[in-house]
């Protein structure tokens, strides 16, 4: 019995099939697990270890490097308020205090209804639009307390706050963990020829041009790996 639901179980198998070494699939599968529950549960890591022939300790050790994998439950909406230099100068700290007092949780906490988790984060790479906060990694630029209150009101009312965000954004604001509307699907016959590392012979094609005894810059089996068409 897989930990993944039926559809994601199929996706997981599909992801595993992309790699010559199953362990390469650890990070994509962590994303998939986070999508299912909103965070990466210990049971999910045990399942991923099983699928990739690793141990749960390796899965946690790999995943815990990445800030965006959550190993504790988080709300459906993850609010990240930037307090790095640019934002701080233009009111980021004050915005964070407003967020904390509005939602009644300190940074790192989750509201009792499980909707909002607040985080105090470092630079989110929008210094020109400071102060800035994100909800589920969607930007809200040049924000103030009023912007945040409107966003909260929208979310509580079931409306999408996206249009209050960065210019050009539209549509829904999916819950935390959602990966994308479109799954990457690579049919078997479109897959680039994957060669397990131990079966690779010779230098990589991009290296051949650097050597005086240059060989034609194609992969060893002669197929053009870039296109993958057969």
């Amino acid at each position: 019995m897989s930990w993944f639901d039926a559809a994601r179980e199929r996706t997981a198998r599909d992801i595993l099939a992309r790699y010559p070494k199953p362990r390469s699939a650890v990070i994509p599968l962590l994303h998939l697990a986070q999508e299912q529950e909103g965070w990466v549960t210990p049971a999910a890591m045990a399942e991923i270890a099983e699928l990739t022939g690793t141990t749960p300790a390796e899965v946690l050790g790999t995943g815990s490097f990445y800030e965006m994998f959550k190993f504790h439950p988080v709300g459906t909406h993850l609010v990240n308020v930037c307090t790095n230099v640019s934002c701080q100068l233009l009111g980021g700290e004050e915005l964070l205090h407003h967020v904390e007092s509005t939602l009644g949780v300190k940074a790192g906490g989750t509201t009792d209804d499980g909707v909002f988790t607040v985080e105090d984060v470092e630079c989110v790479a929008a210094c020109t639009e400071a102060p800035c906060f994100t909800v589920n990694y969607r930007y809200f630029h040049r924000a103030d307390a009023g912007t945040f209150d409107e966003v909260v009101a929208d979310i509580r009312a079931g409306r999408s706050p996206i249009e209050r965000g960065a210019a050009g954004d539209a549509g829904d604001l999916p819950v935390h963990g959602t990966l994308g509307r479109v799954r990457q699907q690579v049919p078997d016959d479109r897959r680039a020829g994957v060669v397990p590392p131990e079966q690779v012979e010779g230098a990589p094609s991009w290296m051949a041009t650097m050597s005086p005894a240059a060989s034609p810059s194609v992969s060893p089996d002669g197929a053009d790996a870039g296109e993958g068409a057969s």
Partner: protein
Amino acid sequence: MSDETPPVEIPSVDITVDGETVAARPGELLIDACERTGTYIPRFCHHSRLEPVGMCRMCLVEVDTGRGPALQPSCMLPCTPGMVVDTESERTRKAQDGVLEFLLVNHPLDCPVCDKGGECPLQDQTMAFGPGESRFVEEKRHFEKPIPVNENVHLDRERCILCDRCTRFAGEVAGDQLIHFMDRGGQTQVNTFPEQPFASYFSGNTVQICPVGALTAAPYRFKARPWDLEEVESTSTLDSVGSRISVQSSRDRVLRFQGVDADAVNWGWLSDKERFVFEAYDHADRLATPMLRGDALGNRAPDGDALVAAPWSEALGVAADALSAAPADRLAVLGGARLTNESQYAWAKLAKGVFGTDHVDAQLGDGLPAEVVLGLPRATIDRACTPGGTIVLLGPDPKEELGALFLRLRHAVVHDGATLVELTPRRTGLSAHAAHSLRVLPGGAADAVSAMFGGGSPAGAAGLSAEALAAAGATIAAAVAEGRPVTVLVGRPSLAEAAGPVVDAALALHDHLPEAAFLSLLRRGNVHGALDMGLAPGLLPGRVTLADASGVSSVWPTVPTDRGHDAIGILEAAAAGEVDVLVLLGADVLADVPDRDLAERALANAGTVVAVDLFGTPTVARADVVLPAAAPTEVDGTFTNLEGRVSVVARKVTAPGTARPDWAIAVELADRLGTDLGFGSVDDVLAELAAVSPIHAGITPEALAASVREGVLVEGRTALARPDRTEVPVNDAYGLRLVADRSMYDVGVLVAHSPSLAGLAPGAVAGFEPSDLSRHGLAEGEVVDLIADRGTVQVAVASDPGVARGTVHLRVNQADVDAGRLIDASAPVTGIRVGRR
């Protein structure tokens, strides 16, 4: 010794180290080349038995490879011709200063309360290479300290310098990647997955290789300071690998064993069982005085139901009276695998040369016939682990029985391209890496072997498909054709299967692969020494049969002429009342003989039972005379490992009470019987052994001292005996066959007396292949009757995809479930029916 290939002329790479030209080996890492030629470069993460990782940067040195000098980590840099290295330059010193200061930024500097203080590479190198003081005044990282990562290993993450040694060991060497770096970044730490401890048989090695005090072993925590320890290099006698160890003691008590890197044997690794078993030798329950039968008040009473303390003179007298009253044919000696070679020789001389009996067996019905073990071409561990070689496993799971050997084999298969073919009834710790892992029914191995090489039915054999068998055979044949060495590991895969079918399979492999060499997986301590010393029916010291008594005839008063019984035969004779005196040399027959019923009957019907032992085991409790023996940490002598390698066992502490070395007990007993064995010391025994056994002629104290680390390989074969082929009954469709094997931890006397290990025994469940489970309509966890001809046990059912279909798997020697009640030693295999309750 001489079976090693002659040294090949290795081309060398000349490099310049601190102005002097030294010859490095091609591909050798700079740090290793420097150390080998006398320049020590400080390091924390580098370990010669682990892959380089370049984690700690302590080994930065200034290297010029033609582009001007630059700092490079010498543990990641293979030597290249013309390399110019400066390990003492200003920049090198500055880099070392900086790295040490950096490593100490988060180190708590709690050396005064740290067990590692005094033997700590971080402490030593800070003194030798460091800046002397820290500029860091900020708050250090804080973690809960220490946290147990398993029952025996504690982790203090504040002390950790993140060298990756323990985590690399866990993954690369042990294959148990249960510890890993977590939260990489500013909070990087070593940890386990929550609720999943570092449950590895080899976890103690991480403590030994930790370059700081981050990992400590519970049995040694706060016991001693390194400068108070005395140490002596010795050999682990726990199992037949004979790992080299350092025995470290303080105030006449052994406080720890550390692995010593013997290149031919254990590479410095130990299983936790080898490492922590010293606790048993130091246990308060050790026998400290002889005992005789008596009553509850402590008075001597020959038919009393208790054991009471007695002086040696009285106990030896009772034993000698019984021995001198019994005819040679009604005397038997069982056991002796725990003893040193010298003690074994003394007892062999006493039993065979003074008593005149050949009913002597060091194995307890759980091994293989001595003539087969000594008659097949022998392999060394190095041969088995040859890069690119082929290993055929026809025996038990090395991970469960011979931990240090498992690590060598795993390295060969995982890292050195060795090919593994398994013919085992159950998945082993190596199966994941096997080229062919075939599940053979008990009794079916010989058929499987002949099917592998084109004989037998096209439908396959022993429950295996013809294709799978042929593929495995083809792999081996290809290796032979290409001249790559094939080594067969042979032992008893299951105690519920007699030795006969295994011997048949081993001989079939020998016939099909005359080039193949065999490595015995007999497990118990110095059992191979016992075979070499003649503690086996039909054999005399030096791997010769009774027919070839020329060696001993001049120094032994008598030599038996007729082959005696083996262990099962001795026990059967005892059960039939045909044994007047049964001497047990550390033989816990009630626990170690696979056939429990036979052992019970034998003890009940034997005349006088003389037990020489370390502990008051249930077997000893039924003896008439109990003589306390000295443990391996308390005796000098030698040990013969499964390759035939003789290495030194060294005394470190005093035996409790009046316990004596086994050889001295033999001398005393002989004296009472009016014979002088002629030994006043261990060296006397060794000298006589060298005189009577040509193959041991080179085993002198001088030769052993000259090769103290690697030992001396004793070579020589007995004529190969070919027992009659064992007929295995056909399995009916409803019956199952029992596979009863050992696990690393059980309720055996040494584990039970090692507090660190005693809680680790996994207990017994009946493992069924999943389809067998549904075929019998059983549910996991359900308690069923396992019914054999001999007896019935109740046990919970578990689904185990690792067992062969048509078998039930049960661990022996576990609490609550006594698998020995099911086993009939005279039957080739043990059939099982399942009864619902």
